[in-house]
């Protein structure tokens, strides 16, 4: 019996797809140029089924690629070594909303946006809000340690995962963490699974921390005639002990694209625009947003607008939200990266990205989360143009190098995946790679769990 037949017996024929059309439909995620077909697409219904599937795969050394909704931007969910793509849409239940302990326990296939809606109906809040939250699954978010717009004030996915259940390569099921806020029993395996990109095991359940839902929200848009002034405003806001819920940035190239595309009324002569939101009790919210407006004006903002109504706030947010759309429409291929620096280095980093784009003759616009230093240099290109593609890759290598030089990192929220695996050693060093490899070997000695991700094939060294 072949391994595919064995898996058919576990989950039933209906839930194992091997037709060519199916394999082509699961050959990609949101990363350009890493398409590869799996050998089977499998949709299990339970932890028990996953345990059996993993055992079959381990026996036959078949790769397993867990895939939520396939929105990954670093080729983290592409089956580049074939094998099984594992789906979670049959494990998409919210198991328990515990209002006494402020936790929610979910299966990995629940859409993150649905978790937010469910808890907000009860006056509770799950803050991590990656832009894909209406599409991506919580399992994917946990595996990638996804960030979002609210990172500055509320942190990211890892700050909300209290416990996970996971199936290991040897078929063991581990139950790490739980509902306890305090839990120091042994190594923090929960944290190890968060951001592990499917390379250590298959997450089958998670318990998430919730917080009270803020009562109100205020939105401010400010434009500047220099990046330095915008960056100085950000620093001063933080230095004044204000922590906005979101503090977003778009550069001149992005402003231009947004205006061409949606005419939201941004000043096209501005070099930078900041979108700032504060949430909390109405009086504090209003007080904070006016203070922030004052700081922006003091630091040379050309225009500032506080939204009077929720409708107007939505319009202002649209300026930032449509950034990717506006840029993506400009070229056949769009690469969205997430180089991140300490927030004090934002102006330096944005300037450096502009210089690198010029040097390598590529088209890059930058927007991102100014409050936490997480930038999205976005390259508009065409992957069929081989010589430009090489320059694009070289430009991004230079951007990652610059981020690290400034005390930053190669990825703030998208994950390493296969795309950024050549650069991981730059950030964590050879010693870091060695330790990570030993961890990987301990969990998954045969390397069946999402192989080819995190670790570069030539051993963590960059081929230059």
């Amino acid at each position, binding site marked *: 019996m072949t391994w595919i037949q064995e898996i058919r017996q576990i989950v039933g024929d209906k839930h194992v*797809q091997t*037709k*060519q*059309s*199916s394999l*082509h*439909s*699961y*050959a*990609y*995620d*949101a*990363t*350009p140029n890493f398409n590869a077909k799996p050998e089977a697409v499998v949709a299990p219904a339970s932890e028990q089924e996953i345990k059996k599937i993993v055992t079959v795969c381990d026996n036959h050394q078949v790769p397993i690629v867990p895939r939520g*909704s*396939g*929105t990954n931007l670093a080729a983290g969910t592409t089956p580049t070594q074939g094998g099984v793509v594992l*789906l979670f*849409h049959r494990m998409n239940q919210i198991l328990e909303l515990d209002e006494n302990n402020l936790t929610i326990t979910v299966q990995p296939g629940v*859409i993150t946006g649905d978790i937010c809606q469910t808890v907000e109906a009860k006056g509770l809040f799950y803050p991590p809000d990656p832009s*894909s939250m*209406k*599409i*991506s699954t919580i399992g994917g978010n946990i595996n990638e340690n996804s960030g979002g717009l609210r990172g500055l004030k509320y942190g990211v996915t890892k700050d909300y995962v209290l416990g996970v259940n996971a199936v290991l390569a040897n078929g063991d099921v581990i139950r790490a963490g739980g509902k306890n806020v305090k839990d120091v029993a042994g190594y923090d395996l929960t944290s190890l699974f968060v951001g592990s990109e499917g390379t250590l095991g298959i997450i089958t359940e998670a318990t998430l921390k919730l917080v009270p839902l803020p009562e109100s929200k205020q939105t401010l848009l400010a434009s500047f005639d220099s990046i330095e002034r915008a960056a100085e405003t950000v620093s001063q806001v933080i230095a004044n002990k204000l922590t906005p819920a979101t503090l977003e940035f778009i550069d001149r190239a992005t402003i231009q694209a947004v205006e061409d595309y949606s005419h939201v009324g941004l000043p096209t002569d501005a070099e930078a625009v900041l979108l700032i939101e504060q949430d909390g009790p109405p009086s504090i919210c209003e007080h904070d947003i006016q203070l922030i407006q004052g700081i922006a004006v003091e630091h040379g903002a050309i225009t500032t607008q506080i939204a009077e109504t929720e409708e107007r706030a939505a319009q202002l947010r649209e300026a930032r939200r449509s950034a*990717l*759309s506006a840029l*993506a*429409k400009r070229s*056949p*291929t*769009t690469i969205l990266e997430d180089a991140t620096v300490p927030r004090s280095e934002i102006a330096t980093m944005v300037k450096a990205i502009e210089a690198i784009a010029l040097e390598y003759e590529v088209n890059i616009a930058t927007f991102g989360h100014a409050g936490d230093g997480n930038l999205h240099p976005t390259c508009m290109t*065409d*992957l*069929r143009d081989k010589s430009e593609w090489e320059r694009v890759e070289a430009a991004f290598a230079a951007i990652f190098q610059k981020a690290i030089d400034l005390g930053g990192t190669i990825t703030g929220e998208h994950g390493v995946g296969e795309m950024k695996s050549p650069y991981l050693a730059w950030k964590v060093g050879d010693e870091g790679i060695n330790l990570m490899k030993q961890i990987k070997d301990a969990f998954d000695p045969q390397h069946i769990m999402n192989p080819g991700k995190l670790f570069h094939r030539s051993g963590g060294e960059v081929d230059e």
Partner: protein
Amino acid sequence: MSESITQAFQERISEDELLNCMKCGFCLPACPTYVETQDEVHSPRGRISLMMAVRDGEIDDVHEVEESLNVCLGCRACEPACPAGVNYGEMLEEARAIFYEHKDKAIREKALRKTTLNTLFTDQDKIGKATSLLRFYQRSGLQKTARKLKVMNFFPEHMQQMERVLPEVPKRTKQHRESTFPSETTQTKATVAMFKGCLMDTLFYDTNQSTIALLNRAGCDVVVPDTQGCCGALHGHSGEKSGAVELAKQNIEAFETADVDYIITNAGGCGAFLHDYDHLLKNDPDWAERAKAFTDKIVDFSSVLMELDFPNEVPLIIDPQIITYQDSCHLRNVLCVAEAPRQLIQAIQGGGYVEMPHADQCCGSAGIYNLTQPEMSMQILDHKMKNVDTTSATTIVTTNPGCLLQMKLGIERTEQTDTMRAVHLADLLLEALSTDDLNSG
């Protein structure tokens, strides 16, 4: 076979357009067939990757791809959701045309298409006769006999229900063919030409009359060019592109001589297809410009009513009832008309408007989709009716004949015919015009 299909894909489906899809997945929650199946084979980005695979010759059995495209509703809800602005609908229709030209249809579908499309919709006279038959069937008592004898039991369940919801066809004498209808205001505010549509002109003849009455009341002179034909949407959506092109030319000619401000439609599906004539004829040097002039004038009647401030000019009153609105996909996603119908409904005094969850998602009618893909269509409809239920509405308003029939079918399937109705927006608005006002007008 596969090679020639691959070649046709290479020649006719732009690689630029396919590559424009960045596979970000933002289309997934907007796609009704993905939402139902949770399977990328039935998602917009999945279908685009499959078209690419055919183009690259990477797929042996291209019929698997054809099947995936057949399951697509063509509702185009993915287009407004797409950050990269991929023109999915255009690629879908071109791909369907290629498959259609290369392959015999399954017998059932072939028979269905042949009768409904080639014979019926290309010929106003024939659709007239067909509806005469239907009228005879309804009026002669044959319908009762047929129901009694359970003749319809030989057909699939949803066809039986469909038979029960078909509207009564107006008497032939009523279908007189006047061609100009003057404005009822002291000053004419706009001159418009009415696109009748084949279903709208027969099964929904009264709705067309309502539309004209509303436009007259709003200050429009309405002309109805008599050489117009079917819009060609059903042909275009199912791959019969050449049929669609012929109809497009006929219609452009029919409206060219009328010197009007707008060309009005009251069927979202027709309106969207008319609006895309410039794309359909873009490679024909004799017609490209004429098509553009035509499409620039296409507008839904609801938009014109709002532009002429109809709700403030005319009192609209109706018996107390909860009303909800089901978007016509093509009206919303192609003509980008979403607010006007809602504003008009909300302007009616006495009626309470409640927005239903996912009103913007396809009802599963999608042209003849409910006949070609009955299972998926009914699955989508059943979910739609659950959303209707959450509003407690007794009136469901639509702006397209296919949606109207589908919503009637939904009411029939959920056995709510005694308490719930589905109406076209034009008919609801006419109902809301007070009798006094009509008389004084």
